[in-house]
């Protein structure tokens, strides 16, 4: 796109660029430029600074702040060669300058360079996205699908903002009638975070046996994580052990949002207990509760991304508890889908990953 009010200058620029094989669009002022940008996908912009309806630099600053995904490079066109003008333009985000009177070869060289740079940047972004997708797929493979563990009687819904994240769940049969369910949230949002979940999975599978109580499992994982995690890294975890033989559920929390228990008659209990996070303190104290439950009891466990989008996280937890009650008559798969959808509709607009798991006893 050429944004230039002087007819002669605009014709020269068009002829030079079209002669080389580029397509051009011309806007004689900023208003027309703005309108054309809504209709056309622009690869590069040559933007005059002094235009009849405003200053090109200020317009570009304003445009960028309202279009955060804008990626086309901008080259300012000006007769003013002063350093001050150039610095203003570069500060605004311009990648280069073209000064009048024009030099045909210079125009072509600068445009070509910046188009090449843009193409390289886009390819890099594409490659990064592909890598993240692969990592995300690998991460998903680490987490069991309910269909593959029919005896575990659970449903799960997961949302990842970036392809790979720090939210994690796993389910292990630790005894004939004993199932362990874990939901974890790693601190941070870097790529490293998703890699630590692989470590957690390995540790969980090592320690989740009938020989260890749920509290002991978390203590053992904590001891191992203290040796290997970076100083700022931690996990919050909720571990639920369901004993189908004697009808008990043991819940152990490490700084995690409270689980919600719904009885078959629809009575709601929220287990809000203070507990240390995992991987930070050698003398960590976890909150543990064992309940006798009836057949058909449901346990809702989730990560904070599901409820922190509300103004107050407590409000999100209350809404989730309400949804858990309302969906009691539905099968777990429909219950989880409806709960998730309704929460989003009610205002759960978190920028974080989230997991919701329903375990039915």
């Amino acid at each position, binding site marked *: 796109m050429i944004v230039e009010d002087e007819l002669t200058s605009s014709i020269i620029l068009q002829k030079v660029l079209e002669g080389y094989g580029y397509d051009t669009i011309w806007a004689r002022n900023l208003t027309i430029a703005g309108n054309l940008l809504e209709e056309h996908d622009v690869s590069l912009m040559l933007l005059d600074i002094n235009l009849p309806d405003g200053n090109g630099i200020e317009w570009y600053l304003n445009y960028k702040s309202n279009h955060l995904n804008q990626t086309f490079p901008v080259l300012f066109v000006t007769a003013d060669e002063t350093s001050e003008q150039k610095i203003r333009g570069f500060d605004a985000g311009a990648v280069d300058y073209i000064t009048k009177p024009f030099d045909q070869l210079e125009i072509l060289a600068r445009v070509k360079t910046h188009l090449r740079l843009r193409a390289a940047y886009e390819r890099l972004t594409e490659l990064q996205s592909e890598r993240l997708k692969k990592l995300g797929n690998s991460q998903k493979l680490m987490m069991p699908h309910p269909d593959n563990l029919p005896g575990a009687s659970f449903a799960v819904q997961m949302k990842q903002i970036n392809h790979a994240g720090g939210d994690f769940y796993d389910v292990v049969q630790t005894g004939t009638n004993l199932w362990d369910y874990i939901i974890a949230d790693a601190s*941070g949002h870097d790529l490293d975070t998703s890699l630590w979940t692989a470590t957690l999975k390995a540790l969980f599978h090592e320690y989740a046996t009938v020989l260890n109580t749920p509290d002991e499992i978390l203590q053992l994982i904590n001891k191992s994580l203290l040796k290997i995690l970076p100083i700022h890294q931690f996990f919050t975890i909720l571990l639920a052990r369901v004993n189908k033989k004697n009808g008990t559920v043991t819940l152990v929390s490490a700084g995690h949002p409270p689980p919600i228990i719904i009885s078959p008659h629809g009575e709601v209990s929220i287990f809000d207990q203070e507990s240390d996070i995992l991987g930070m303190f050698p003398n960590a104290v976890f909150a543990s509760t064992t309940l006798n439950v009836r057949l058909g009891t449901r346990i809702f466990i989730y990560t904070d991304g599901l409820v922190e989008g509300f103004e107050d996280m407590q409000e999100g937890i209350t809404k989730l508890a309400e949804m858990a009650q309302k969906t009691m008559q539905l099968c777990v798969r429909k219950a989880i889908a409806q709960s998730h959808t309704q929460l989003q509709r009610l205002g759960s607009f978190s920028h974080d990953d989230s997991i919701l798991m329903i375990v039915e006893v």
Partner: protein
Amino acid sequence: MSEIPLLTVNNDCLMVTCKTNFTAEEVHQFQGHLLDSITDDISKVVFDLTETTYLDSSGIGLLVACHNSMNLLDGSVEIRNVSENIYRLLSLMRLTKRINVTSTQGDDHG
């Protein structure tokens, strides 16, 4: 938009004044500067969260890492003027039992 906390030294106390967001973006940009500021002369680090409305896991990770590091040096960390929501979050993680946390309601714990 990133809001880097302000660091000031007052005798042996390092004051960290946090802005509206204390999240991964801010932590990433200022943790190096924070570490450089914790010299041998510093025995206390105070985080002022008066203006902070959003604290994420990266921010919490930095607070705890700082607490653990200062503990090893026989120093201390204090977190002041947290909002009710942030206080509840830190309580859930039992951090109010380990670190001196003051809420804007004036509760003193830790």
